[in-house]
Structures are given as structure tokens and as C-alpha cells.
């Protein structure tokens, strides 16, 4: 394998870096601390599973490029947790699940209308819808009557099959589906093309608006179900329970090697990105850093990754400059000469 081949491999498979990070951190933790047992690994797996479900939705939105991002997921997660518990207590699980899906679809549709239809920058539009959802959670919080967690949801969120957390299986299924969507379907291709060059995509007959809108709906729906499961996992709902997922989902996406400018994403990378981020947090907990410091470190990690990714994309821009445009006249003459 030549050097060029190797760098090409890393260029095409950016998830390798996060996998490497996961392995290195795991090795260090295993050697350095006796307290990092298989059990804590499964704890990491559970946290990472919740994160990856949200992060995959975030990844789809980021893939559409032009700075698209979904900041409303925190509000969606919190509200879904409240609603699933409230509705489950009064009307049973099926209605609760339908309500959760409805929250996801509605929030995603509103985001899509604001961003695609009205052209409002996603960072502002989704921030605003997130605030509206947070207010709805406040209202729900007032009528909150103890625990009504569905035992079925609790089994999915916290149960184990042969030592394997069920939620991890759920997460892997979602990962597989998103991977197929990106790699094997026309929609996945259209999504990459839209994220990289929306004008060219449009000229290739791709309905760019619909492609982008669908990602916002997908992101919200994934966040909504994640919220319901998270509520079942912790056995209740509380305000702000979704908030950490804004930065963490972004962190998982960029750590995983998806381009923050859109157009190139990897579901597998997002899995490793989620794992890595959760392990970083776990490490800090083991070391005994206070929660505030943990947030600082997480933020610093994301910024560091973006700084490096930004540099490399600038380099790429220099490698392929626009070809100079020679004067067009005289072409036909040369054409004749070649015939």
C-alpha cells in the first residue's frame, strides 16, 4: 500500500479516526484503572446508544449542507419524554407512541417549513422551535402526576438480552437502516449531492427542497422516540433532560468524520463518534472532574475537531483550483485540423 493509497483510504473512510480514538481510550482506561470493567463498558454502550439515535438524525440534517442543523432536538426529547409518560398513564402505550410520533413529525415539519419554505437559517429556526417545545414541556411539567412509565418501553430502554442492552440493539438497527439509506438508496445519493452542490443537484432533477425537508422530519422523529425511551430509562421526565444532546449530537457527528459543511456523512462514524464522546465523559467521571468541567472538555473536543476538519477542507480547496479559461476563439479551426 503506497502512501497515497493510505491517505486515500483515510480520506474515504474518515470513521477510522474515531474508531482509533475509541480503541486507544479503551486501552488506556483498561490498563490505568481497575474500576473500568466490562460493566462500565456496557454503561458506555447504553449512553452511546441513546446518543447515536439522536446523532444520526442530526447527521442527516447536517448532510444537507448550507449550515443546516437541528437545535430543536433538545425540546423534542424533553417534550416526548413528558408526553409519552402522561399519555401512557391515561390512554395506554399505543396512543402514547402515536403521540410521540406526532410530536416528532410536527416539530420536523415546522422546521422544514421554516428552513426550506421560508428560507430562515436553520440555526435560528430550530432554536426557536426548540424554545416553543421547551415551553410546552413546562406546561406538561405542571400536570405531571408521578410515574406512568410503560413497562414495555422500560424493557426496551433498560432491559438486556443475554447481557446485551436492548437499547444498543435498537441503536444498531437504526444505524443499519441509516447506513442503507445513505449508501444504497437513491435518496441517499440525492442527499449527498444536495449537501455538496445544491445547484447541480437541482439541475440533475433532484427536488432539493423535499430532500432537505425529509431530514428535518427524520431528525425530529428520531429525537422524539429517543425522548420516550430516555424517559422510560430514567423512570420519569424532567425539564432540560434533552439539553445535553444538542452539543453531544453535533460532537458525535463531527468526531465520526462527517463533514460539518455537509454532503459527506458516515453512519458508522457517528456510532464511533458517539462512543468516543461518551467514553471521554466517562473518563472524566472516573477521574472525578466536576460536571461543569466535563462540558468544557466536550466543547473543546468538538471545536478542536472542527478546527482540524476546517483546515483539511481548505487544503482540499487549494488542490483543485478552477482551471483557467483560455480564449475560446480558434477552437473550430483546431477542430477542423483534427478531422
Amino acid at each position, binding site marked *: 500500500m503506497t502512501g497515497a493509497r493510505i491517505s486515500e483510504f483515510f480520506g474515504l473512510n474518515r470513521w477510522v479516526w474515531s474508531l482509533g480514538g475509541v480503541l486507544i481510550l479503551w486501552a488506556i482506561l483498561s490498563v490505568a484503572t481497575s474500576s473500568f470493567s466490562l460493566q462500565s463498558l456496557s454503561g458506555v454502550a447504553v449512553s452511546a446508544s441513546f446518543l447515536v439515535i439522536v446523532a444520526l438524525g442530526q447527521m442527516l440534517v447536517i448532510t444537507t449542507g448550507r449550515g443546516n442543523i437541528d437545535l430543536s432536538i433538545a425540546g423534542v426529547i424533553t417534550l416526548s419524554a413528558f408526553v409519552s409518560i402522561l399519555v401512557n398513564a391515561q390512554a395506554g402505550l399505543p396512543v402514547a407512541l402515536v403521540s410521540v410520533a406526532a410530536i416528532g413529525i410536527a416539530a420536523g415539519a415546522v422546521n422544514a417549513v421554516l428552513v426550506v419554505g421560508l428560507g430562515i437559517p436553520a440555526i435560528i429556526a430550530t432554536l426557536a422551535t426548540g424554545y416553543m417545545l421547551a415551553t410546552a414541556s413546562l406546561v406538561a411539567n405542571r400536570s405531571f402526576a408521578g410515574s406512568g412509565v410503560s413497562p414495555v418501553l422500560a424493557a426496551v430502554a433498560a432491559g438486556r438480552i443475554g447481557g446485551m442492552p436492548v437499547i444498543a440493539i435498537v441503536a444498531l438497527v437504526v444505524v443499519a437502516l441509516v447506513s*442503507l439509506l445513505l449508501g*444504497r*438508496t*437513491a435518496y441517499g*445519493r*440525492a442527499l*449527498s*449531492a444536495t449537501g*455538496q*452542490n445544491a*445547484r*447541480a*443537484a*437541482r*439541475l*440533475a*432533477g*433532484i*427536488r432539493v427542497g423535499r430532500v432537505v425537508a425529509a431530514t428535518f422530519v427524520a431528525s425530529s422523529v428520531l429525537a422524539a422516540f429517543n425522548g420516550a425511551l430516555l424517559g422510560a430509562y430514567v423512570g420519569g421526565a424532567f425539564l432540560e433532560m434533552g439539553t445535553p444532546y444538542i452539543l453531544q449530537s453535533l460532537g458525535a457527528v463531527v468526531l465520526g468524520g462527517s463533514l460539518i459543511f455537509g*454532503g*459527506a456523512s458516515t453512519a458508522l462514524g457517528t456510532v464511533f463518534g458517539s462512543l468516543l464522546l461518551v467514553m471521554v465523559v466517562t473518563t472524566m467521571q472516573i477521574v472525578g472532574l466536576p460536571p461543569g468541567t466535563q462540558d468544557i472538555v466536550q466543547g473543546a473536543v468538538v471545536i478542536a475537531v472542527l478546527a482540524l476538519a476546517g483546515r483539511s477542507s481548505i487544503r*482540499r480547496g487549494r488542490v*483543485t483550483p*478552477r*482551471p*483557467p*479559461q*483560455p*480564449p*475560446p*476563439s*480558434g*477552437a*473550430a*479551426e*483546431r*477542430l*477542423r485540423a*483534427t*478531422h
Partner: protein
Amino acid sequence: MSVEGGEIALTLDDVSKAYAGTLAVRQATFHVRKGAVNVLVGENGAGKSTLMKIIAGVEQPTLGRILLDGKPVRFPTVADAVSQGIGMVFQELNLFGNLSVAENIFAGRELVRGPRGIDHREQQRRAGELMARLQSRIDPSAPVEDLRVGQQQLVEIAKAMSQKARILIMDEPTSALSAAEVEVLFRVIADLKRQGVAIVYISHRLEELIRIGDYITVLRDGRVTGQDTIRNVDTHWIVRQMIGRDAKDFAKDVGHRIGEIVLKADNIVLPRMTGDLAVDHVSLDVRAGEVLGIYGLMGAGRSELLDCIMGRQRLAAGTVSLCGKSINELDTTDRIGRGIALIPEDRQREGQVGIMSIAENLTMASLKRFVRGIHIVRRAERDAVTETVKDLTIKVVDPRLPVSSLSGGNQQKVVIGKALLTGPKVLLMDEPSRGIDVGAKADVFRIMRKLAAEGLGIIFVTSDLEEVMALSDRIAVMSNGKVTAMLDRKEATEAKIVAAAAAGHGPARVSQSLSEEVSA
């Protein structure tokens, strides 16, 4: 080829300019005389802009000298040229839309009064004076973005005047002006001449050059092909110098049958933001197996016309019909589905997705063909890619590499291949040979002929006279948004095409006399 005349302010002495791989200017000598209008004229790409940029300090000559008042000088930056009294009115407007007229005129050299900062009142007073000299009622405090393009052009001119330039370069200053504004500009130019200012004047409007110019220099393929005083020349002479003495008819039959009308555009109108028309009541059609060339200068409305046909302009009016059925109600996606494909002018921005693979770019517009159930059948896709690569002689090592790894010509072939995989009936090609090397050009032209022979209707836009003559079955000439001539291959001559491309501008009298010349 020396011309007797007035005192010389600046000389480009035996100047050449090379860009990566091409010579934009070859050993050109150009005198700029004081108190006179020095006209530069030539086809697109003949090297006019490069010469101007050398004078204005935007570019440095690769070889040759610049003589100012007989002494060799260098202009490493624009600021150096400005400090020597060289001003320029750019063709593309370089104004700040959110600033006022006065602020634009004095941008970068604001009038300041001690610690109180910018003296807005004085700036506005002087801007008002300049506007009065241009006989314009533009309010100096109005934001530039509220002005029509023609008025913005006047602001540019006022800005150059305010710099008290000794040498003033004007690049197509009348392209956006109304007939009345042109008259005012000509009076201002006469006024500047009397003050001894040397004016370098560039325009495609030949009648205008004859009227305003004193000395003329004609460029072709980077060479100076003619220099004279305007008194001694006429439009026929200019055209002859522009296209060369050996201009001849080399259109040839490619020997295939031309079929039914496949695409018909009727009365297409597209307004500009500024209120005038980018596409002005254009009607044309193309038949199966026919190549229709649209020739025109930049900004003549050619690309906009293709955009209208493609359904990319919401404000467009008129009807577009494909095989006799109106497709007006369809969006771009559905039009592609019905069989229209566009090869855009700007490959990087609209034609391809840079970091996606060659294969993915090729099949991007036709993915539906390869989908079974919900997933893409890799094998079918690979076969189509292999076939297209072979058909279009695209030189690729591996179709899985990013498309940006290809040369410009091969990238263009990928864009063409992408369009062809949609199975189009009509192919719209906007400057298909721009920015690609000679060999690839020949390939692209061969592909166009082959496609036409297979029964595709092709409309292609070009600024290259020889190209349009060599490839077209029929030639539509556009100017100022209008089709000013529709010529059959047999009746088309370079002179007719050039004249028609300059018609449609400015005063009715001029365009009328030129179109008479065309029909004559």
C-alpha cells in the same frame, strides 16, 4: 502599422501576457493618446480585458514594457496605477449596494475633517456636482442598491471622474445605459477630451465606436490585427480585422436527416430585477437531429433563455412545448423527466458534485433507472457507467475516484454523460467548450454531431464565432435579449453574425441600420 496622431500618454510596448498554458496577449503594442478616445475592439477572448488590466495594474505583463510619458513604469498594484492618474470604469459594477452614492464615489479616500471624521456634507456636495456634470438627477444620498443598473453605471463613471484620472479606461460603459444616458455620457467624454484626458474605450457596439472614437486598435486571438484613426475606417473594416481576412465559410453537412420539431419556445420573456428584459420576446424551435447554435456576446440573454426553457426562472413568461405538448406547468425535475437536459455553463457550480465519484456524478440525474424496490442495483449502475465512459471516451483510471480528479475536458464529458443517461430528446448546452483543452473540445464537438445524427435536438450557446459556424445547422444570433438574426447554415457569414450580435443595442437608428446590413 504606425499611426500618426496626437501626443502619447501611455504605451504598451510589445506586451505579452501568459496565463497557465495560454497566451492571452501576444506582442501587442498599444498607444493611448492624450485628449482622444482610444478604442479597443475585438471578439470575446481576444485579449481586450487583459490589456486593460495591465494598464490598470490588475495584471502584470509577462513580457514587454509600459511607457508612461515615454518613461518605463511598473504598476505592481492597482493603487500604483491610480497614483499615476489611471482610472477605470469596470464592466461589472464594483459598488457597495448598502452605501450611498456619495459614499461609493469617495469609498477608500473619504473626505475627512479632523477628529469629526468623514465630512458627509462635503462628500455629498461634490457627488452632487459630479452628478450634475453627468446631467443626472441621482440623489447623492440614495443607497446605490436602489438605483437602476444604468444609474449605477453613471455612479461608476462619476467615481472615476472624481479621481481626476489622466487616463480613463471605460469597459463597455454604455452596456447598461439608456439611449438618453448614452448621449450624456458622450458629452462628458467630449468634455474630458477637451481637458486632455486620454480615454481608453472598449465596446462591442461598432456604430458607437465609429461615432465616439479617435483611434482604433483591433485585437484578435491576443494579437493586434489593425490600428488606424477612426476617420479612415468603417464598420466593415472593423469586422474584417476582428474576424480575420481569411474568414471563410467552413460549415459542412454532417449528412443526416432532420426530423420533426421537438422543442418550441414561443415568445419567451424574462424580466430583470432592474425592470428591463433579460430575454425579450424570443421564439425559436429545434428539430430532431438539428443543431441550433445560439451566438451572442456575454450578457445577450443566451444563458437566461436556456434557463427559461429548463424551468429555472420563475418569472419567465411565454410557452415552451416539447413534442407539441406544453410543458409550462412543469418544474425542472419534471422537464428533465420529459426529455430536456441542460449542460450548464458553469461546470463547477452547477454541473458536478466535486467530491462525489465519477460514477455517482454520471448516474446522479438518472438514478431512478437503477432502483429496484428501494435500493440501487449496483451492477446495473456500473454497467451504465462503463458504457458511458466508453461512448464518450472519458479518460478515467477508476470511476470510483472523485470527479474533481479529472481534467476539465473529462469533467465536461461527465456532465454530458450525466445528461445523456436521462435519455433526453433535447440537449441544451451552454458554452460546452469553455475552459477545456483542444483535444477535449474536438471530442465534445464530435459527440454533439453524433448525438444529432442519432436524432437528438441540440441547442448550444457559444461566444465563439468559428465554433457556431462549424457546428450549427441553423444559427440564432442574440443581442440585448432579442434574437436579432436567424440564419440558415448556407446563408450564414461571419460578417452577418457579428453585425447581428452588435444590433439590438442602443438607439433604434443604429440597430436598424445594422439589421439592414444583415438582411442585405
